[in-house]
């Protein structure tokens, strides 16, 4: 089956094409086609996972030359190793759940078919990204994922906020991709290949200078920063919640945003060659995680809380991977790689579940504001428990899946005090804001009676995926139990397999931290023994800062967007006035110059011409008297000339007189006689007058 891995992305693509061109008008059929394809992909993925379990150290690779120029080859191919296999299963699982869920959630939407087409396109891109065997191909699907994300965030594009959000998401991730692109160029130039195996081999061989390696790694990481919404490019993800909730679950929680983490994990051989790059990764992860968690504490929009939670958890994973790279570069062992990828998997399940649950809640109460909810546990018998399971999982409560993966991350950070404290603080905040959300949503008295009255449990095709994911949220972590010998850590690893060992102290600490977070939330929002408002009032400055998300949007607006737009406007002015002005100015100068020329022409050049004309005309005024109009006069002239010509040509002699003399005499004779005629002409005229009188 592994040989046919390339089929996995193609199945959803087939669904996409079929829906767009053929079955668009048959809504339910489109949905079913889409679901059938993702289920088929899921089955294949599971089979591949099982096959891969048997061949951990022999990744399967298949490639086809996409562009083949001398010294420049671009490939399309598949690489199946444990990481790929796990990601395939995760993506197809969440994808299948979300698609089934969407049948209910998107019910009655006018663009129902299109939604499934987009989802299929997304799954195609995401699966392609996962199976890629080289950096070029991953970039292709990386961008396609961005496109589908754009389309899906903007699915309800009539809403201005959605239209803004999709653009923001695309452009912000593009900024990250810019770095990725530069990283790719560096890889292409210095490594001469894009293939993972080739690149990593060269990176490990020490041929490439360390500076280049660091730079390449950091640039590649830029891509992850954009896609995984890491600081400072995290701003798009909360806004992306304008899309339909299943989209948020699939793309902006479970899969696409995890692609950044996947990329870092995938290029880990690159990062382990550079401690600096890895440290940058880890620090960015920590900052992101802490910042997002702190913002999550005070938000009121259910999806935004989850979004910040996602950012925070992704930062967690990134940090773990970065720490692994840092450790390994210095020759230490670290559980970071295993921890990061493990958390990637478990997080996909419980965060997918959280979003789908949130979707179910929103479906029921038609609002996103948790301040308007409350007491919903009574109405939503299935949604509430599953949601709480996921919340427990993300809070890291034993023995749910989140506990196991989070524990490993804490273990990875344990050597570095700052990271350890940060990690625990984040875990605490996570537990707190998740349970704040839970308490406000499901417990207590309804704060908006009207909404509460109309709330109802979602249909079965929405709740069953919740249950399925809840099961996974509980159990998925058990593949990585520190006590089992052949667990996740020996399956997905980099370099040599890491043998996890149970560190009970750390387990206890992280459990206590998680529980205390929940307890604080319980006190504040369930028992209300500590007033949330009072706290907000007490730390007003901090509260405002957090509530406004550290003002990142405003800062970016002021620092980046406004200047760029102003600069663009300036450029346009520059273009229209200076450059085009120069062109038109040249034209104007030419015209002015030609004006001068015209003057010159009129008075000097044409003056000369006219002068010639004047001379000629004056001469002609004399000569015009020869123009008698009398045909005979002209004939006479001809005769005179003929005679002259004859005299000259044949050198006629009269009585020994040479021809020149003869000619002169002839001319003189003619002239004299003409003058004579002129004098006597009066007589002729008089005669003519008498004619007229007759």
């Amino acid at each position, binding site marked *: 089956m592994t040989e046919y891995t390339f089929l996995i992305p193609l199945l959803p693509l087939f669904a996409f094409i079929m829906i767009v061109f053929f079955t668009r008008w048959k809504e339910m059929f489109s949905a079913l086609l889409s679901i059938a394809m993702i289920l088929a992909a899921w089955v294949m993925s599971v089979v591949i996972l099982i096959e891969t379990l048997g061949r951990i150290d022999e990744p399967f690779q298949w490639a086809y030359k996409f562009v083949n120029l001398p010294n420049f080859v671009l490939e399309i191919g598949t690489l199946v190793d444990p990481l790929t296999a796990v990601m395939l299963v995760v993506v197809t699982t969440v994808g299948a759940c979300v698609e089934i869920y969407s049948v209910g959630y998107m019910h009655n939407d006018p663009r129902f078919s299109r939604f499934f087409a987009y989802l299929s396109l997304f799954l195609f891109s995401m699966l392609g990204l996962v199976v890629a065997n080289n950096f070029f191909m991953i970039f292709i699907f990386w961008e396609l994922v961005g496109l589908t994300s754009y389309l899906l965030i903007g699915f309800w594009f009539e809403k201005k906020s959605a239209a803004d959000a999709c653009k923001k998401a695309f452009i912000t991730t593009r900024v990250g991709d810019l770095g990725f692109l530069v990283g790719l160029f560096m890889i292409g130039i210095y490594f001469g290949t894009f293939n993972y195996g080739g690149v990593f081999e060269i990176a490990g061989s020490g041929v490439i200078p360390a500076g280049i390696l660091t730079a390449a790694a950091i640039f590649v990481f830029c891509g992850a920063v954009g896609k995984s919404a890491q600081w400072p490019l995290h701003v798009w993800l909360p806004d992306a919640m304008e899309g339909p909730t299943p989209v948020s679950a699939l793309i902006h929680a479970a899969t696409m945003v995890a692609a950044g983490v996947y990329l870092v994990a995938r290029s880990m051989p690159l990062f382990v060659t550079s401690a600096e790059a890895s440290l940058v990764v880890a620090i960015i992860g920590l900052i992101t995680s802490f910042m997002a968690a702190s913002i999550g504490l005070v938000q009121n929009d259910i999806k935004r809380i989850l979004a910040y939670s996602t950012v925070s958890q992704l930062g967690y994973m990134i940090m773990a991977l970065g720490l692994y790279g840092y450790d390994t570069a210095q020759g230490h062992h670290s559980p970071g790689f295993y921890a990061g990828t493990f958390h990637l998997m478990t997080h996909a399940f419980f965060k997918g579940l959280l979003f789908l649950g949130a979707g179910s809640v929103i479906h029921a109460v038609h609002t996103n504001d948790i301040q308007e909810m409350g007491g919903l546990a009574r109405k939503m018998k299935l949604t509430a428990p599953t949601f709480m399971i996921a919340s427990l999982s993300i809070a890291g409560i034993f023995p749910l899946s989140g506990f196991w993966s989070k524990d490993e991350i804490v273990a990875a950070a344990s050597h570095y005090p700052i990271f350890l404290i940060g990690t625990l603080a984040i875990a605490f905040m996570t537990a707190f804001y998740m349970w704040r959300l839970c308490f406000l949503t499901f417990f207590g008295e309804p704060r908006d009676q009207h909404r509460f009255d109309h709330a109802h449990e979602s249909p079965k095709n929405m709740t069953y995926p919740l249950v399925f994911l809840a099961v996974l949220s509980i159990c998925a972590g058990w593949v990585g139990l520190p006590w089992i010998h052949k667990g996740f850590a020996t399956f997905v690893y980099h370099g040599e397999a890491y043998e996890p060992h149970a560190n009970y102290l750390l387990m206890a600490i992280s459990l206590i931290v998680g529980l205390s977070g929940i307890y604080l939330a319980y006190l504040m929002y369930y028992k209300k023994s500590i007033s949330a408002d009072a706290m907000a009032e007490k730390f007003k400055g901090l509260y405002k800062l957090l509530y406004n998300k550290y003002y990142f949007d405003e800062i970016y607006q002021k620092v980046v967007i406004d200047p760029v737009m102003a600069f663009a406007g300036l450029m346009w002015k520059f273009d229209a006035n200076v450059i085009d002005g120069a062109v038109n100015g040249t034209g104007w100068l030419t015209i002015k110059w030609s004006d001068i020329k015209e003057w010159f022409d009129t008075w000097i050049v044409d003056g000369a011409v006219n002068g010639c004309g004047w001379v000629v005309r004056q001469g002609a005024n004399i000569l015009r008297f020869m123009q008698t109009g*009398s045909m*005979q*006069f002209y004939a*006479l002239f001809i*005769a*005179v000339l*003929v*005679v002259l010509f*004859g*005299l000259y040509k*044949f050198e*006629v*002699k*009269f009585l020994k007189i040479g021809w020149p003399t003869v000619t002169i005499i*002839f001319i003189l*004779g*003619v002239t004299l*006689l*003409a003058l*004579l*005629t002129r004098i*006597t*002409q009066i007589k*002729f005229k008089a*005669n*003519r007058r008498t*004619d007229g009188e007759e």
Partner: protein
Amino acid sequence: MGEPGIVFWILSIVILVSGFMVVSLKNIFHCALFLILCLFSVAGIFILLGAEFLAAAQVLIYVGAVAILMIFAIMLTSNLASEKIQQSNENVLVGFFVCVTFAISAVMLLAKTYEGVWGRMTITEPLPSQNIATLGKYLMTKFMLPFEVVSVLLLAAMIGAIVLARKESA
């Protein structure tokens, strides 16, 4: 060959004198009459030169047709035959001088050329005696095209004359 005989000289004088009369007489009617005389004499010259057909044509066309036509024209354009009217224009003096010069220089040129070139030329064959027949044959063979063209020209001239001379109908 041989020298031109007395006939030639008589004819020459007649031609020149009558020709001069044509250009100088005041009465245009008389001019026409002298023209007839002149052309008639030229026909004589043609006979001397062995061009009998041409001589006949000369008499028929010029004397018989053209000159008569002119007399008709003179008579149609009334009141022009009187002697009172100035018949020459202001070019008379210059024209006369030029024409005399022309005549003298032409004759001198001819004499010079004759001495230089023509005199030494020999004639390949004498003029055929029955040259009317030859002429007719050539007209129908070698000079077919010019002949036809000239006939068309004549036709055109005829039509042109009719068109020009007829009275405007409206």
